[in-house]
């Protein structure tokens, strides 16, 4: 981050993200999921708040119905606006009963935000090593290996150009910052590594914080005569 940063508690940022996601147009329920995802990432020392700020800034103003998953049937392919990572993520954990072996999600917006949901799925189903490969289009590419919700063995972010230049070259800067995401199960059971301790603090750049605060403010109702009367104390509240 280039701008000034501030330190926050993870709960504080998760609460802000919930409001910001609602402000960006998600239902309160998906806003809860956004907070869940950010807390999960932050607890593992990852930049969940920054990733969510970018995501919300991107989807704000979109008709979110156009980036929803339309069906659990594979393949999961987004339309012109891409597929929302939160919608895909919640579907991944809702549909634990459906085998989604070697799932490929094409054109997913903010694939980084899939990680908390993939980790949950993997822990519930197999605790086997899962490899997530995201080939970038405009967002940073990354690879992650997950064992369980607690053990994220590696996340490799790459800010380099796409491993698939052909795909990248079809995009221009006005298009969605989406990626193609391949989720691979690796058959060998993982050796359970020691549970890493959680991180309870997170830093956030001023720009990202401004984005979240601005979107959160969209959930606040303009003052009315009734609201100015306060929480019900009446005219005198001093004794």
């Amino acid at each position, binding site marked *: 981050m280039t701008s000034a940063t*501030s*330190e*926050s*508690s*993870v*709960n*504080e940022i998760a*609460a802000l993200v919930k409001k910001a996601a609602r402000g960006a147009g998600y*239902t*309160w*329920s*998906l806003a*809860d999921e956004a907070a*869940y995802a950010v807390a999960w990432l932050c607890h593992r020392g990852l930049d969940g708040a920054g990733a969510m700020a970018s995501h919300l800034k991107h989807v704000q103003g979109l008709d979110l119905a156009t980036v*929803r*998953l*339309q*069906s*659990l049937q594979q393949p999961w392919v987004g339309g012109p606006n891409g597929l929302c990572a939160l*919608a895909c993520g*919640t*579907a991944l*954990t*809702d*549909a*634990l*009963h*459906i085998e989604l072996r070697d799932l490929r999600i094409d054109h997913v917006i903010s694939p980084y935000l899939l990680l908390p949901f993939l980790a*949950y799925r993997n822990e519930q189903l197999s605790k086997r090593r899962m490899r997530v490969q995201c080939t970038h289009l405009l967002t940073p590419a990354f690879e992650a290996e997950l064992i369980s*919700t607690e053990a994220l063995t590696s996340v490799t972010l790459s800010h380099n150009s796409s491993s698939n230049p052909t795909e990248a070259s079809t995009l221009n800067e006005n298009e969605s910052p989406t990626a193609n995401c391949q989720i691979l199960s690796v058959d060998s059971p993982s050796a359970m590594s020691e549970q890493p*301790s*959680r991180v*309870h*603090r997170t830093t956030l750049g001023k720009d990202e914080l401004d984005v979240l605060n601005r979107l959160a*403010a969209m*959930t*606040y*109702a*303009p*003052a*009315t005569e*009734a*609201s*100015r009367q*306060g*929480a*019900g*104390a*009446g005219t005198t*509240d*001093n*004794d």
Partner: protein
Amino acid sequence: MKADSSKTSEVAALLTESTSANITYPSNAAAVRLRPADTVMQLDRLGSLHQCRLSFMRQMTRRMAAERWRFSRPEFNIDNTGVGYAVYTAHYPGGEASLIAFAHDLPDELRSDRVIAEQWDTTFTLFNGQPTKEDIERLRKNVPKQEAGRLSEKELTLSRANRSVRLWETVVAALASGQQPDETALQGVGYLMRTTAVYGSGKFGAADREQLLAEPTTARLFTAPFSVEMLTVYLIRTFVRDLINHAARCAGGSRAVTLAPELARGLGIGNSTGLGMAPFLINHPVLIHNWINARETAIARVRAVEVVHEQAVSMVSTLLKNQLRDAQHDHSQHPIQQKKQRALVDDLQRLINFILQPSSKQPFFWNAVMDWANDHLSLEGQECLASLLLEPYPELVDDLSLGMHDSVSHSQRIDGSQSVSEVTELLKTSFSWAQSIDWQSEPATARCWYVSEEKLEPRLGERYEEPLSDYEQPLAPARDAVAAINALQNWADETTIAEVLVAEPQHRRAVQRAQWGRYAPYGEIRSNTIDADMMPIDLLRAKLSFFGATRFDPRSDRWVRICLYPGAPYPEELNTDNADRWIYPIH
């Protein structure tokens, strides 16, 4: 009164397991019959709850005494004008926590007990450990600003309090002149200072609750809900007593006397609570289940006591008389509370007569009393009785405090494999009563919970009079559950809910709450939280009763004053003999 033998045998015969979402209690502990959630979770009953052995303040004082906590006051740097800071440290087994109190010179015209005020007489933080000079300097720049300041992971709470205008100056003047203040006046108010907020977990940069629970020492201490807040208020009360003695010494010099211990002990810390607290009960269904379930299990265990000893009857009788005197001296000015209090006085008088009858020697006497109360008393009387009946039985009740936190809901996600028919059943388990409400009618949806831009606090507005619906907070689970039930009728019974939620994600929250209901049946309020006649103070009262609050004094239908820790021993007095039933005032 003759016992209903069919009911008593039913209790004796029933052996069911009771669970909080965290812990399964052994079924052999007692024969248990729990009151159904459809009864207990009605809002008017929740608005009649009383403190009990499981209340968080009482858990805290019992623990401090049992573990022989030591308390010290390493710093008290308050000048003659009442400005400065003080540090109070609680030394618990394996660690320390310190209240850092800042005292300010607040002009009278700026004193307000509204949460949205910007200056206060005193401001506080609870610090994890003992603060260094650098910590205090950092906090001096931030704590007085409250919401506008920043805390670090070393801080656990943030709070503030104002002097009681009715009492402070007159008490200082009396003590300064060498006189004790008028006891009746002290009792009439009940506190020298009143907090307007005690913020906990992660707020304004403070440590997250999860961080405390990750450390074995603090996890052991602070797993119980609101325990850091309860410790904060306990230490604030000690500081306030010391501050008024200091003020009297500054004003009166050698003539001044300190506040007599018996007078000081009767004083608590006031608290003003408005709508900001109201959404909590709706937003934390699993936690609320664990609170209610603990109390209901305790009640059921006591009802299942077959042989009720004379000492137990005597104790309950004494406490009923004590509560009666307290209720007769109720100081509330508000018609809502006055009406409830009148009913309570009448109930308590009838209960005292009922309990003293010879029938107390019958088997399962408490069960008979509860059944009689259910048929003859107001909700206030019923719930006051239920709480008092727990007093003689610490061995049946106190272990339930271990299951009152929520350690599961953050990790419980939707089970998408459930079928439409299964989820519909779950929705109806908590909300079948709501299906008969006409959700198209204005009275049923008259209210709208929202957060105001101006104050950033929860508010309750009139949906059809103000443009608020676009800003509605998700605090009407009954309406949303019925909408989900109706939507699911359009899907085949065997369809999985995962498929439904891809197409209709707007019902996701209702589905999740319904599934939580499988292990948190007391999690959902069985009343319409947006009805035109809904009383927000019922939500406040329910939560505050679990804190252990007393002296409920509503200022309107959505704002209430209470008292915390009146009667409690101060740190230097605390021992295992006085750590528990201090909450019942001695008349």
